[in-house]
């Protein structure tokens, strides 16, 4: 069943790109909904004891030990749910605006979805790498064709940066592959059994780290991110921030640490310091931003820094926190970027100073924006809270000082988000904002679903935590340092 999640959007994407049929929007949305239904069914019928469900394993390139093997354990199911929950929302939110050449746009979005599902489902190292790279092509085209100012320069930097990062991962994978016994194999179970010396493991881990750190991005590899997020069209930014950056976190949990536990003790302190530095650095910059989209881009770096620190701490709290936070951050950030898009389309600006008083003229918008914003600030009973709490707890267990510094993220988060909300929504209206129209049906639907998720997952975080609990226990038990 897993392979359906890849094949269905891939075929639909080819259909849209090559045949350019009519009714593109409906086809794209239908594929998104079908995929969501498949992933719900897959989650419903799976076992959560850490085993791999719904496996498909067929020979592909036998000469190179590469197999088309996909399947999902608890972590995989969470990622699949995230991807396929956000896809219909992203497609629906794109439909509230006119886009040139819609078959191409939606075809690329669906290709992207296929690649993302592939990344989260692959249980073969080379297959993982191939999907990881395949995801880069559609997002590059989406951002560079429909992007704003400077898009050519910005996206070229993004492309080359992430492509080079992944090449290092390829070298690491190849090194592990050549160490597997007998006729070599890329299967996860074979790669994970390779014993490395500490020195070898350090190099292999650095190769993985570079690829994933660029993708997330972790300070100081984040320089491509704010420009790319700001320049990209909203759909592209949502895909990048909502799902694509999770590829990096997921890669660290699934591939990096289990492959090279020998290097964990040596390298983790450095990675932790980088991650925590990134949190503080990005938060401070976010506080000073006047452009709402750029502010959210920096807040995303801060949040992901905390997630990365939780992963590297490699304890139960940290891992569970990072997993639940990946889902919740994805939901919140997609909501926030949609809010930015709504404001920008109505006012023609993203500058906070030119806004104000929107709450008076658009109450429905103000309420939904408020709920999502509170989720991003991690107020208790919203979805941001359990994740941040677990993450900070995990980092604290690793090192109290780092935990304390990382805790600043909550304070800073409250500062910049409340400041932004206040400047945009309260105060006096000006000539532009007085004309602000409240949400139409489709926009209400998208923001309403997101706000509802913020509240539901805030009240019942256990829905998510129990998905991954068994798998996390199993991983923690199997990776020996």
């Amino acid at each position, binding site marked *: 069943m897993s392979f359906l999640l890849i094949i269905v959007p891939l075929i639909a994407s080819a259909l849209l790109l090559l045949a350019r049929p009519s009714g593109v929007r409906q086809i794209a949305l239908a594929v998104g909904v079908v995929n969501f239904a498949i992933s719900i069914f897959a989650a419903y019928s799976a076992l959560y004891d850490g085993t791999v469900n719904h496996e498909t394993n067929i020979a*592909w*390139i*036998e*000469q*190179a030990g590469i197999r088309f093997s996909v399947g999902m354990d608890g972590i995989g199911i969470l990622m699949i749910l995230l991807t396929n929950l956000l896809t219909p929302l992203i497609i629906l939110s794109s439909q509230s605006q006119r886009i040139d050449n819609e078959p191409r746009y939606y075809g690329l979005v669906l290709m992207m979805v296929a690649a993302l599902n592939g990344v989260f489902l692959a249980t073969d190292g080379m297959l993982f*790498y*191939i*999907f990881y*790279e*395949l995801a*880069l*092509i559609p997002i590059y*085209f989406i951002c*560079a*064709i429909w992007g704003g100012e400077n*898009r*050519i320069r910005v*996206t*070229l930097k993004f*492309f*080359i940066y992430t*492509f*080079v990062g992944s*090449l290092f991962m*390829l*070298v690491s994978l*190849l090194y592990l*592959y*050549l160490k597997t016994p007998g006729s070599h194999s890329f299967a996860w179970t074979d790669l994970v059994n390779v014993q490395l010396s500490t020195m070898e493991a350090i190099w292999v881990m650095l190769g993985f780290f570079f690829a994933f750190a660029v993708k997330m991005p972790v300070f100081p590899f984040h320089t491509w991110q704010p420009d790319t997020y700001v320049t990209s069209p909203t759909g592209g930014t949502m895909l990048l921030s909502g799902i694509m950056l999770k590829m990096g976190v997921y890669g660290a949990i699934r591939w990096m640490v289990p492959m090279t536990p020998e290097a964990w003790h040596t390298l983790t302190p450095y990675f932790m310091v980088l991650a925590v530095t990134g949190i503080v650095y990005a938060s401070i910059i976010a506080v000073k931003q006047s452009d709402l989209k750029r502010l959210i881009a920096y807040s995303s770096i801060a949040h992901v820094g905390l997630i990365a620190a939780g992963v590297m701490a490699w304890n139960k709290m940290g891992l569970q926190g990072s997993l639940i936070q990946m889902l919740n951050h994805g939901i919140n950030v997609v909501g926030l970027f949609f809010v930015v898009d709504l404001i920008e389309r109505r006012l023609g600006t993203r500058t906070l100073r030119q806004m104000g008083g929107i709450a008076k003229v658009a109450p429905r918008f103000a309420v939904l924006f408020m709920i999502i914003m509170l989720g991003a600030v991690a107020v208790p009973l919203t979805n941001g809270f359990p994740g941040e709490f677990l993450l900070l707890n995990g980092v604290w267990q690793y090192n109290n000082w780092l935990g304390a510094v990382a805790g600043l993220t909550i304070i800073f988060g409250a500062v910049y988000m409340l400041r932004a909300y206040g400047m945009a929504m309260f105060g006096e209206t000006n000539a532009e904002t007085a004309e602000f129209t409240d949400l139409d049906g489709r926009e209400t639907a998208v923001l309403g679903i997101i706000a509802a998720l913020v509240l539901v997952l805030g009240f019942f975080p256990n829905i998510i935590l129990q998905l991954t609990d068994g798998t996390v226990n199993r991983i923690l038990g199997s990776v020996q340092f």
Partner: protein
Amino acid sequence: MFAGLFGKREVLLPVTLLGLAAALGVSVMSLSTGDAGWGTQYASMFSFDKYAQSFTAVTLASVLLLAGMSSWGFRTLNSSLGDHYALILFSLCGAVCMFSFTNLVMLFIGIEILSIPLYVLAGSRRDDLASNEAALKYFLMGAFATGILLFGMTLVYGSTGTFNTAAIGAAVERGVASPGMLKMGILLLVVGLSFKVSAVPFHFWAPDVYQGSPNTVTAFMATAVKTAGFAAFYRLFSTSFLGVNEFWSIGVAAIAGLTMTLSNFTAIFQTEFKRMMAYSSISHAGYLMMAILVAGQPGSAGAILLYMLTYSIATICAFSAYIVVAEPNGDGSFAAFNGLSKKQPLVALVMALSMLSLAGIPPLAGFFGKYFLFSTVMQQYPWLVVIAVINSAVSVYYYLKVIIAMYFTKEENTYEVLIPSSIRWVMVAGVVIITLLTVLPGNIFGLI
């Protein structure tokens, strides 16, 4: 050619295509039946073994596509059309000799049969100065290289007493009486063959010749001729000189490293598409040189074969897209491609796929070509693989330039781009082959 003589222009292309298709069919059939080849033929001059069969099949496939492209590429030729097809086919015969030789004399004759028609083809636009320059340069350099090659063969013969490649291999294993003469001979052979495959520092002729020649001929030189050069290089060194590989491997490794680095960094600064492709073709020669280093290792021949096929198909697709854009408008710069994705989505798609494949971006076919090649070399020469990987990353930059022009640049130009039906067929076939190679690269790799 004879049809041309009798004034039957219109049958030329069908006859050529049919002949090529029949030859392709025969070689694929003998490969698939597991026929061990037709054995050694003609007083041990040839051996049409699996290696020769599979390279012949790959080259025939590219020439078939090229012939399809030529029906439009050669549209302005009148009386000399028959000559062109005949010259290309002669050249192809030379290539087949180079795939299957078991004797140095046959190698030499193969190279000459391959090259002489090319000198003529390069200069076939008689009223164009650049074309004349290309022909003259190619001829002078080619003749020079041939001389060096012949000299090398003589020295090898002098030290081993035979022209038969297997016998040379055995003699080299045993040790020869005059190792100095043998080493000098090998050195000269490396230099001569490096000229032929345009590896640095013997590459200076390539950009000018590629640029000056008619587009179809350039595509032929960049694909079939390069395949022949590398196949012969590999065949010679894997059968004859493995015994002294520590002597020549350092030199070949240095040539490989230099070739990819210099050409990639030069390609970045090109503004003309065809010149960029010339340097790109030199850089691919650099990657392929690494396969010579691991000659004889399991998988290395398959890696060259797959790489050559993916590279050739992508290059031919790129040239077929280039000629419909550049030839009618007389502009070969990157700017000529501006806004092409709106005007002709098919051409833009074909070009984009070829560029991404040449850059080796997964999951396209070119990635698997690179992957198999690099992983074969990895165990013995990890540092060279690191250089190659960095170079692949650099190359992404200039391949993306074309894509940026086609898809992202808002400035329009007024060029009209029409796709003749023959080119459309070449493009569709090329995309189908690239897709097949993307899905099933292992089948080609496993042929040898």
